[in-house]
């Protein structure tokens, strides 16, 4: 409970006016590159294989002749959009980005770089964390849309290469019962997940005390806590938006 209070107080300091907007935008571009662009390869790899496996598993369970052939495409589309792309990719990014942020900020803390910022008169939380949160909130939806597209492409590749379905049947499945609201729901979740990953990881990095061992521990704690936060937020958002 003490940590939650401290986390909320941290956010209060993070969301203040930057010392200089030009510096903020320069840092934002750096973070968009670090958090966003650099995550594209892992997201692409995970999404393509995830889509492929979903399609193959669905096809392997299609023993009943009563099920239309386009079901594979439909299930791939709905499970990718509703859950796999927003949630699983966010959990993977919690590992990649969360540990990176916690160790970066944690190292700055134990090497007194954060103290140096504070003594200069810089709001260190605002300077370090706000560009990261902004970058995550802006770029995570792009990553997830990219993931959705690649997942469906991966599904198609696996089906066509295994000769389990045709392109026409698969595409028909993708388009059948497609509800654009599901995309809105997925992107809303993604924005929340992006915020949670960066803010929770920054919290663990910023308040680390001790040495390199403690930075390592904070990094692990950041990944675990942001993953738990994602799972809880996923449940709550699904309750609020879909039901």
């Amino acid at each position, binding site marked *: 409970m003490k940590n939650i209070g401290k986390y909320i107080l941290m956010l209060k300091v993070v969301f203040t006016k930057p*010392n*200089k907007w030009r*510096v903020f935008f320069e840092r934002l571009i750096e973070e968009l590159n670090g958090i966003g662009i650099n995550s594209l390869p892992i997201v692409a790899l995970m999404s393509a294989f995830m889509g492929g496996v979903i399609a193959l598993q669905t096809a392997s369970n299609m023993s009943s002749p009563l099920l239309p052939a386009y079901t594979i495409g439909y299930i791939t589309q709905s499970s990718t959009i509703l859950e796999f792309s927003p949630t699983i990719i966010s959990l993977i990014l919690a590992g990649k980005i969360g540990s990176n942020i916690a160790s970066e900020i944690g*190292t700055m803390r134990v*090497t*007194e*770089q954060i*103290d*140096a910022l*504070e*003594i*200069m*008169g*810089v*709001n260190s939380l605002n300077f370090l964390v706000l560009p990261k949160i902004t970058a995550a909130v802006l770029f995570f939806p792009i990553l997830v849309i990219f993931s959705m597209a690649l997942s469906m492409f991966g599904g198609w590749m696996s089906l066509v290469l295994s000769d389990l379905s045709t392109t026409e049947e698969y595409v028909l499945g993708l388009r059948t019962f497609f509800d654009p609201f599901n995309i809105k729901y997925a992107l809303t979740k993604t924005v929340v997940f992006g915020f949670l990953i960066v803010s929770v990881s920054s919290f663990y990095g910023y308040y680390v005390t001790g040495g390199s061992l403690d930075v390592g521990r904070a990094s692990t704690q950041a990944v675990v806590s942001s993953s738990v936060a994602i799972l809880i937020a996923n449940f709550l958002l699904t309750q609020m938006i879909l039901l």
Partner: protein
Amino acid sequence: MVEVINVNKSFGENHVLDDVSAQFEKGKVNLIIGQSGQGKSVLAKCMVGLHEVDSGQILYDGRDFTQLNRYERSKIRQEIGMLFQGSALFDSMTVEGNIMFPLIMFTKMTKGEMKKRVDFCLERVNLSGKNNLFPSECSGGMQKRIGIARAISMNPQYLYCDEPNSGLDPQTSILIDGLIKDITSEYQMTTIVITHDMNSVIEIGDSVIFIYEGKNWWQGNRESIITTDNPEIGNFVYASQFMKDIRTSMQEKRG
């Protein structure tokens, strides 16, 4: 001038600073000395606001730092330069980036003006032309000098140095001490140095405060610290055989 008045600071049950009062004069190198764990670093951190005091006042030319809000403190902090024990240079920036950083954040200088100021500061610490190196490419002594260059880039009125000689060889230590002394008198700053290096005390200690068990145990200068009869200071000053030999030879001279 910086004044500390009746400052108390505890961490849980551990009472680290016990009613400490002291004055640090302008244009002088003021040393805070003491054994490890006696509270000198905590005192310095309280003075710059990295720790909040439990009670007492910290006055920067009459302005009570403890009573200011975050924004007002930020204004005073722009008048403070600090050299950290581990230099605390920003890894991701070059030497130039490090020195330019406070200028970018707090001045309206043009790029050209900032570049000129960086070159001047680097020249002042004898590191001209090292602009494009990264901190990881610099030796410990160079990092300290870059730290000093960054600290003086904003023309501070107050300079804090936290153990500026730790981890340095004796020659580089003397160089850093000399640099601190020179820039203090050149810019008429109030310089506060936390150290337990007796060489620094003898070289640059215009004013010396000895912190013991969280109290301002003794105050004097580099001459009086050698001759004082205070037993706690005696244990600190004459801890090494070298200093003991100096004392013996001084006593022999006196007859």
